[in-house]
């Protein structure tokens, strides 16, 4: 004969229950502490810090994992980002290749010294990619959030920003992107829809006070750009 409580678990005394709940909460708390809800103030601080620099430069190591290729392609070089002028990306190994990305133009420098290649036809898809690159380096969060759905993760000084494309055109090209860094941008990973994953690691990134003339002139197609010397450029 089955009595009422025979097959059901013995109800715990109320006090025990309460203690268990507290225990559960207690163990949950540290876990939550590892993933604090990113406070807008903290995000603003990070953005401000990144935006405060008008010129940064450093070295990069690019790893490109192509779909179907067991071994990734490696490239390395240096870059200079000059606010309101553009991003100069110079690959030194395995080939020499330099490009200046500006908001209106894409300048290819085939040789370390010499004139640029003539301007090609405008490509809206390319312009989107350029726009994203420049937004990343200038920490233009507003622009990025217009094109992507962003998710922040903070871990002490370090931060990670995951971007999922929200714009139709971008979605055709980029599957998702991730940025991470601390005081400076440290890595940028872009997974393209074609199936390759490009990872860029930035090393020795620092604010620059000025540029050598030759390098400065690579930010425009025509010579005649006013270049900040080491004395004038503000860190």
């Amino acid at each position: 004969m089955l009595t009422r409580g025979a097959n059901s678990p013995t109800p715990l005394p109320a006090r025990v229950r309460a203690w268990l709940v507290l225990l559960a909460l207690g163990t949950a708390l540290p876990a939550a502490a590892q993933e604090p809800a990113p406070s807008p103030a903290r995000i603003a601080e990070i953005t401000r810090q990144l935006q405060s620099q008008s010129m940064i430069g450093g070295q990069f190591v690019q790893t490109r994992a192509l779909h179907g290729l067991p071994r990734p392609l490696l490239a390395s070089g240096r870059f200079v980002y000059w606010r309101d002028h553009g991003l100069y990306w110079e690959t030194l190994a395995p080939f020499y290749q330099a490009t200046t990305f500006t908001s209106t133009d894409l300048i290819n420098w085939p040789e370390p010294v010499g004139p640029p290649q003539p301007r090609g036809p405008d490509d809206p898809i390319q312009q989107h990619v350029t726009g994203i690159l420049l937004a990343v380096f200038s920490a233009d969060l507003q622009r990025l959030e217009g094109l992507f759905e962003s998710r922040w993760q903070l871990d002490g000084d370090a931060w990670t920003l995951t971007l999922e494309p929200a714009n139709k055109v971008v979605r055709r090209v980029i599957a998702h992107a991730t940025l991470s860094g601390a005081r400076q941008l440290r890595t940028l990973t872009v997974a393209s829809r074609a199936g390759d994953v490009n990872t860029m690691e930035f090393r020795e990134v620092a604010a620059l006070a000025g540029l050598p003339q030759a390098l400065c002139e690579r930010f425009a197609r025509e010579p005649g750009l006013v270049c900040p010397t080491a004395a004038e450029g503000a860190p």
Partner: protein
Amino acid sequence: MTGAGAVCSDPARRRERLAVAALAVVTALCAALFAQALARGFVFETDLQALLPQRAGAALEQAAGERLFAHGGDRLVLAVGADDAELALRAAGDAQAALRQSPLLDVDTLSPATQAAQGAQLLDLWWRHRFQLLDPAQRAQLAAGGAGLQRRAERDLYDPKAWGRLSAVEDDPLNLFEQFRRSLPTGPSGAVLRGDHWVVETPLEPGRHYVLLPAAMTDSALKLAAQRQLVAFVEGIAQRVSEAYPGVEVLRSGIVFHADRAAQTARAEISLIGGGSALGIVALFLLAFGSPRPLLLSLCSVAFGSWCAVSVCQWLFGELHLLTLVFGASLIGVAIDYPLHYFTRLHSRRAPCGRRRALQAILPALCMGLATTLLGYGSLAQAPLPGLRQVACFSVIGLLGAWLFTVAVLPLAAARARRPYPAALARVAELPTRLWQRVGAAPARRALAALALVGAVTCAAALKTSDDVRTLYRPDPALIQQEQRVGALVGNYSPNQFLLVTGASAEDLLQREEALQQRLNQLHSDGAIAGWSAISQYLPSQQRQRENHALLERVVYGEDGAAYALLSRLGFESATALALSQRFARSRGDYLLPEEFLAAAPPPLQLLWLGARQGSWASMIALRGVADLATLRQAALAAGPGVVFVDRVAAISALLQHQSQQAALLLLVAYGGICLLLRWRYRSWAALRLVLAPALASLLTLTLLAAAGTPLTLFHLFALFLVLGLGMDYSLFIADAGQRDPDTLVAIALSAATSGLSFGLLALSSTPMVQAFGVTVLLGSAFNLLLAPLLAVRPGAPAR
């Protein structure tokens, strides 16, 4: 034949009954035709080129031109400009949000994102056929051996630019598809995509950035009533934005703005002119006859005539051109003379008659007047141009109808004259006669002869003709300027000039276009055109696809192809290369076909393809920035058969010129015919003097126009027909009744006054063709009024 001073003779009852019977028959006939037209639906033709005799191929040109025109007809573009691009973008964002509020506009269909999505379908199609597609630079490179392709592709792999690749490396190692895609024009040239907007900086206005906001009109906006609402809405937004953002300018472009402005001007003018003339005519009639019935009956007779003309012409021609309606109706305005003469006779001061006798008194002159006017307009019927023939037919039938109505109905329907016309009116009407009496007939005639000579010389020396299309419609200069500025930013294709290519089949057509491409590039580099767009750029002919495939096989995907070399260099497994070569082998003969392409192509490309028409296939090549028409024409001629350069503006000008020449010739023929009729009727060559009044009036009018530097257009010539008709009427009535007969003089004065009011006020219009008509009739009527009493001597009577 009646003499000076009306003698009221008894009209023959039989003739009256005949007239009424004739009217009844005509009414019945026209009613039948009208009912038939109502049932079938009236067809009003508005295209000017329907006035031209149909050339073979003209229909195709017309259809093509209409497509280009219609493509822009349902959209508008706002360009938000500022020196600072960011400011312009912010202002544009606000403007776009505001534009979205209206149900009349669809902002998203034309946005770059939507267009890119549309383009995505096409991209997928191209990708499927990528082994048949190469751009000209690639073809040249591959034909030369393809050296450097591999190296370049490898280098590009390491470039951040390569993140924009749509295809995986294993599918397209040399990145050929990417290059092909990039070689094709996408948005406006010189434009940069910022967010979802094109931002353009043009060399015409350096330092200034414009954000383009295209919007399509929804179906509800295409109705006429919604037009005003839409324009007011857009203007409101433009103003708000300019005020909220100092330094920002909002330009507007779109056919709807022109149409709205034209409608507003027309409305204003119709109110002014229509209202003015209506008031004036009513006042005149009431002044002269003291009761509204004469006016009503006069209008009825003209309305009856018009109604007959519409019914018969619709039946005869199957359609009625709007131009015919407009000019034909005005020519019928001569018909109001008949009731006028009747009523002045009825309200005579000197010898009032009864209703029926009044008609009897003027019947001979009425008949001759009709005959001469019919001869005048009838001569237009001999024109080889359908347009002029229609006008002739409309006018002839309209006149006949009005005349018949006057003769049959007026004696029956007119009220007994309660009082004669005012004496003051008679005194005013007699002024020209008194003037000539003062001067003396002989000296006056000598002076006129001299004047005629001077006039002839002036005309011969100074009279210019104009076939400018702008006589038909003169757009508002401010609107046109904005239109041009925005056009330069957007890189619009010209709707009026394009190349029409025909071929025996779709393949033949595409090959012909491809053969043209080199010539077009030459024209581009010579500066004759700023750009061009042909469907063969996006859809190669099968022959070319075959060639492309062969080239790719030879250099890239065949044995020892460069693609496989690169794959192995990068470290791909051999299975990848094998899969690629298999895919390539399977693609042989898998051509991209027109039907497939057109289904995926965006609307701007679709409209270039006219398809199969009347046994041949046709397509258009759209042109941008046409600067040198002569070179283009030569190039089209040199390209051989199947390529035609179409210039609609030139075609319309040629049409106007042709019509003008014909009309001028036929005017002379009309004068000649009338001379012969007069000779026959009055059996003496002296009767030709009757034609002097309108002839001289026309000559003097032309002299004044020449002296003022106004070029002569087709519409001046149309007006001269009217001047002829009116002048002949005046001359004939005066000749019949005598130079002293006050009734006739009053009738003529009233006729000139009503002509002046109804047509002369047209001289105030801003549309050149209407203005031309009005000015000519005004001047011509005035001269007719002045000269008829002097020159219209009754044949056989001594000159006084």
